[in-house]
C-alpha cells in the first residue's frame, strides 16, 4: 500500500493514488493530489471539485461524465457545462482526475 505525506501527516493511497479512507480528505490533500497530476488548482478547478463533493454527499455516487457535464451546466452556467471546459481543467478526464482530487471513490471502470 502506497502513501502520500501532506503537512507532516501520512495518508494511505492505492497504487493509482486514490485515497483509501475518503474521510481523510481535506483541501491540502486535494492540492497535493492535483500537483501529482500536474494540475494547478484555480477557482475554476475548485468549483468543479466542490460540486463533485456535494454531488457525492447527496447521491452517494460519483456522477458519470455526461451527468456531471449536464449538472455543472445547470449549476454554474451553460458555458461551463461542456466537456471542452471540463477537459480543459482536467486534461485526463474529469471522471478520473477530478474524482481523485475530490476524494471520491475510484470509478470502478465499468465501461
Amino acid at each position, binding site marked *: 500500500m502506497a502513501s502520500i505525506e501532506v503537512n507532516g501527516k501520512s495518508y494511505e493511497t492505492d497504487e493509482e493514488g486514490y485515497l483509501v479512507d475518503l474521510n481523510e480528505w481535506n483541501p491540502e490533500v486535494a492540492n497535493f493530489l492535483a500537483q501529482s497530476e500536474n494540475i494547478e488548482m484555480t477557482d475554476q478547478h475548485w468549483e468543479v471539485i466542490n460540486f463533485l463533493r456535494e454531488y457525492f454527499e447527496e447521491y452517494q455516487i460519483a456522477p*458519470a461524465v455526461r*451527468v456531471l457535464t*449536464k*449538472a455543472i451546466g445547470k449549476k454554474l452556467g451553460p458555458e461551463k457545462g461542456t466537456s471542452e471546459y471540463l477537459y480543459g481543467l482536467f486534461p485526463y478526464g474529469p471522471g478520473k482526475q477530478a474524482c481523485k482530487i475530490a476524494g471520491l471513490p475510484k470509478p470502478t471502470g*465499468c*465501461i
Partner: protein
Amino acid sequence: MSDVKKFMFVNRKAPYGTIYALESLEVVLITAAFDQDVSLMFTDDGVFQLKKGQQTKGIETKNFSPTYRALEGYDIEKLYVDRESLQERGLTEDDLLVDVTVLSRAEVGALMDEQDVILSF
C-alpha cells in the same frame, strides 16, 4: 451504440440483507450510460429499497438509497412500483424517497411484455 433495446430491471429483494439491490443499481447506471431505454420495476420486498429514512450507520454499511434520487440526472425516469406489494407491506407512495408510478399487477405484466431484455437480481 446503434441498437437501443428496452431494458427492465426487476427488483424483488430488500436492501442490505443481501447485496443484490446495490449491485442492481450499478447495472442500471451503466445501462443508462449505454443509452438504452431503461425502466425499473419494484415488486415484492423490492419496494423496501425505496423506503425513506434509511440510516445505515449502525450496520457500518454504505447507505445507497440516496442514489435512487440521482437516477433522474441519468435520464432514468421510468420507475414503477407494484401496488399490491406496497399494500402488503404497509407502505404508501408517501413512504418512498423518489417519485414512482404505482401500477396494478395487470399493468405490470403488460409492461413486462413490452421489454426486450429483463434483468433481475
